[in-house]
C-alpha cells in the first residue's frame, strides 16, 4: 500500500532504531512528549517502546480531542437531541464517550436518533435528505477537523439549509501545550509535534517552544518510521544542545500550514475567552466558538443548553496522566473501576487516549497472569 508500506519497512526501521541507540547518552534519561493522540496510538500499535532504549521515556500528551472534552459537554449535546425531531451526529470516536446519563451509543439503544458520520459534510447531507428533521453535528477536534466544520457551515449558508447546526467543541493545540509547560511538576526534554494539526497550522506556531522554552520540537508523521526519525532528530538536537522546530512530516505538512483552511476557520470561528479541558481545567483562549455572523448554525445559541458541569470522580487522576506526571497504570482506578468498556476517565475512552492505548496494547504483557476478568 503506497504511503504506508515504505514507512513500515522492517529493515529501514531497524537501521533507524540502531541510530537511536547510537545517539542516546546511556547516563541520561530522556522524557519526550508526543503531543498527539494519534502518535500515542501508533506507539502502542506498532510496539515501538519495545525497540527504543529503556532510557527514552515517551510521555503521552493532551492531543486526544475526545479525552480532553469535559463530560458536561456530552450531556449538553445529548440533552438537545432528546427532542425527537433532532438527529444527533458525531464521529465514531465520540460514540462510546460516557456522559452522566450514558454515551451517545447508549442513548441510541434507548431510541435516540444518533448517527455516526465520517465528516461534517455527511451530516449536512443528512440534513438535506431529511428536511423535516433537525440535524445537529457534535463537532470535536483540534485544528485538524475544525476547517471541515467551518467549510460545512459556509456551505450550509450558501445552500440555504436551515435544519442543520453545529455543537462546537473545537479546541486549539497551542494553549494546551502551554498549559503543560506551565505546570510546575512538568519536566520534559522535547516534543514530538502533532502531525495532522500541523497540516493546517504549519510549524511556525511552535517557534516559542524552541525560543522561549528551549525545548526541541519535531513535527512528526504517524508511521513507525516517521516516529523513529523524529526521535532521531530530537536526539540530535539534544546532543548538540539545540532547540529548534523541525519538520519530519514534510510530505504532508507545509511550513506555513494551509492558508485556505485557516481562512475558513477564521471566517466562521472566533476564540472563546476560556474553555474547560478535562484534566487540565479552564484554559483561556483555547477553544473555538461560532461567530455571530453564523449564529443560526450554532446549536448552543439556537437551542437552550443546560450547561451541565460534571466534576471528574476524585479518585480518577486523568489530569496527572494527561500531563505525563503519572503513568496510566499508576492511577488508582486503572484497570479496576476504569476499563475501556466502562471508562471512568476520558483517557480510557478513545483508542487514542493514553490509558486505553496502554490498557489495550501494553499492560497485560506484564500483568497477564494477575489481571482478573473485568467484573
Amino acid at each position: 500500500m503506497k504511503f504506508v508500506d515504505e514507512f513500515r519497512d522492517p529493515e529501514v526501521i531497524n537501521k533507524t532504531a540502531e541510530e537511536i541507540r547510537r545517539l542516546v547518552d546511556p547516563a541520561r534519561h530522556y522524557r519526550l512528549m508526543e503531543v498527539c493522540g494519534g502518535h500515542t496510538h501508533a506507539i502502542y500499535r506498532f510496539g515501538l517502546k519495545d525497540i527504543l532504549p529503556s532510557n527514552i521515556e515517551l510521555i503521552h500528551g493532551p492531543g486526544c480531542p475526545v479525552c480532553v472534552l469535559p463530560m458536561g459537554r456530552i450531556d449538553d449535546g445529548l440533552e438537545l437531541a432528546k427532542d425527537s425531531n433532532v438527529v444527533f451526529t458525531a464521529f465514531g470516536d465520540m460514540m462510546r464517550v460516557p456522559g452522566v446519563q450514558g454515551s451517545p451509543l447508549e442513548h441510541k439503544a434507548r431510541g435516540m436518533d444518533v448517527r455516526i458520520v465520517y465528516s461534517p459534510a455527511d451530516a449536512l447531507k443528512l440534513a438535506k435528505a431529511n428536511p423535516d428533521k433537525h440535524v445537529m453535528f457534535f463537532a470535536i477536534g483540534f485544528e485538524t477537523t475544525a476547517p471541515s466544520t467551518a467549510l460545512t457551515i459556509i456551505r450550509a449558508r450558501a445552500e440555504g439549509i436551515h435544519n442543520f447546526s453545529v455543537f462546537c467543541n473545537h479546541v486549539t493545540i497551542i494553549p494546551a501545550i502551554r498549559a503543560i509547560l506551565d505546570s510546575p511538576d512538568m519536566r520534559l526534554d522535547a516534543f514530538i509535534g502533532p502531525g495532522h494539526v500541523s497540516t493546517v497550522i504549519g510549524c511556525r506556531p511552535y517557534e516559542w517552544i524552541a525560543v522561549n522554552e528551549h525545548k526541541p520540537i519535531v513535527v512528526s508523521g504517524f508511521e513507525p518510521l516517521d516516529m523513529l526519525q523524529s526521535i532521531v532528530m530530537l536526539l540530535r538536537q539534544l546532543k548538540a544542545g539545540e532547540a529548534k522546530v523541525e519538520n519530519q512530516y514534510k510530505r504532508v505538512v507545509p511550513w506555513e500550514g494551509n492558508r485556505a483552511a485557516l481562512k475558513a476557520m477564521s471566517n466562521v470561528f472566533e476564540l472563546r475567552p476560556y474553555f474547560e479541558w478535562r484534566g487540565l481545567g479552564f484554559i483561556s483562549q483555547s477553544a473555538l466558538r461560532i461567530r455571530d455572523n453564523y449564529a443560526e448554525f450554532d446549536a448552543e445559541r439556537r437551542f437552550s443548553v443546560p450547561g451541565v458541569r460534571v466534576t471528574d470522580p476524585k479518585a480518577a487522576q486523568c489530569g496527572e496522566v494527561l500531563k505525563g506526571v503519572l503513568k496510566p497504570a499508576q492511577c488508582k482506578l486503572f484497570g479496576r473501576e476504569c476499563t475501556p468498556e466502562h471508562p471512568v476517565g476520558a483517557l480510557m475512552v478513545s483508542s487514542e487516549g493514553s490509558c486505553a492505548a496502554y490498557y489495550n496494547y501494553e499492560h497485560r504483557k506484564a500483568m497477564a497472569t494477575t489481571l482478573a476478568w473485568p467484573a
Partner: protein
Amino acid sequence: MAVATDSTTPKIRFREPQIEMAHGAGGIASRRLVEGLFAPLLFRSPNPALNDAASVEIGGVRLALTTDGFVVKPLRFPGGSIGELAINGTVNDLAVSGAKPEAIVASFVLEAGLPTEMLEAEVRAMANAAQQAGVAVVAGDTKVVEHGKADYMYISTTGVGSYLPGIHIDAHSVRLGDKVLLSGPIGDHGITILLARGELDFEADDLRSDTRSVFPLVQAIAREAAPGIRWMRDPTRGGVATSLNELARDCGLGIHIFEGEIPVRDTVRGACELLGLDPLHIANEGQFLAVVAPEYADAAYNALCQCSGGESAVILGEVREQPAGSVLVTTRYGGSRIVDMLVGDPLPRIC
C-alpha cells in the same frame, strides 16, 4: 419467581441495568451476558464450555447442535445476503465443532409490509446456500410483527450435525507449542457491511463478503490431521482477535500471532487504515481458525492450501506459556502488543 435457597442457587453475575448494543456484538459484553445470566440459569453445568455448538447424546449417538440469529442491515450486500448468512453461519458453527452439518430448521420474524419479492429473494438465497453446503432445511416457523417493530426480517436457524470421526474439539486440550492456522484473508465481511450501509462516504469496488460454508475446508484438514486438531472457531463478530482471546482465556495459555503472517486484502487494509480499525477485530463469515498439534501442523496447512478456497491459508502463530490468557501480536519490527477482545462494535476513528 420461586427463590431457591439451597446450594444450587444459580449465581447471577450480570448486573447491568439494561441491554445495550454491545451485548450483541460478540465481544466482552456478550460473553459477560452469556456467562453471567444465561449460563447460570439455563445450563446444567455451572461452568459450561462455551463453544460454537453443543454436544448432545441421543440414543447413544453424539450430535452437534447449534443455533444462531441473523439481524443484518442492509439485508443484501456485495457477496451475499441475510439468507446466505443464515445458512452458512449455522453450517460453520457445526463445521468448526468438528461436525458435518446434516439438517437445519429456520425461524422467520417478518415485519408487516415486507415486500414478498424481498422475502422470496432471501428464501432462494437460503435454498442455494443449503444446497451448496449439502445440508437439508427440514422445518421452519414464521411470525409476523407490526410494521416498524423489526428491520424487514430476522432469521434464526438451528442446525444439527454428526461428528467427523476421530476429531475432538476442546480448548482445554490446547498445549504449548501448538500451531494456530487461519484459512484465509480476514475482514472482508465486516468491511463490506460497513461500507454497504452507505453511512460512510466511500466505496470499494472489489470488496465482497466472504460468506461461504467452511465445511469442505474443515473436512480437508480433518482427513489429514484429525487427531492433531485441538480447537477450531469461525471468527465472526469480534473477529480473529475475539476468537483467539476466548481461546486464550479458556486454555489459560498465551496465543502469539505474527503480524507479518496476517492475510488481509489491500482493500480491507486500506479501509481499516482510513477508519482507524484493526482487521483483527473485523467480522468474517467464511474463515476459520484452527489450533493443531505441531506434528500435524504441516499436514493440516498443506491440506488447507490444496483445498479450493483455502489457497491463502497461513500458519498465523503458536501457543506459548505467556502472556497467559492473552493474545500477543509480534510486529514486523520485533515489537509487540496485546490484542484484546473487541469492545462493542468497531467504530471508525476520525479526529
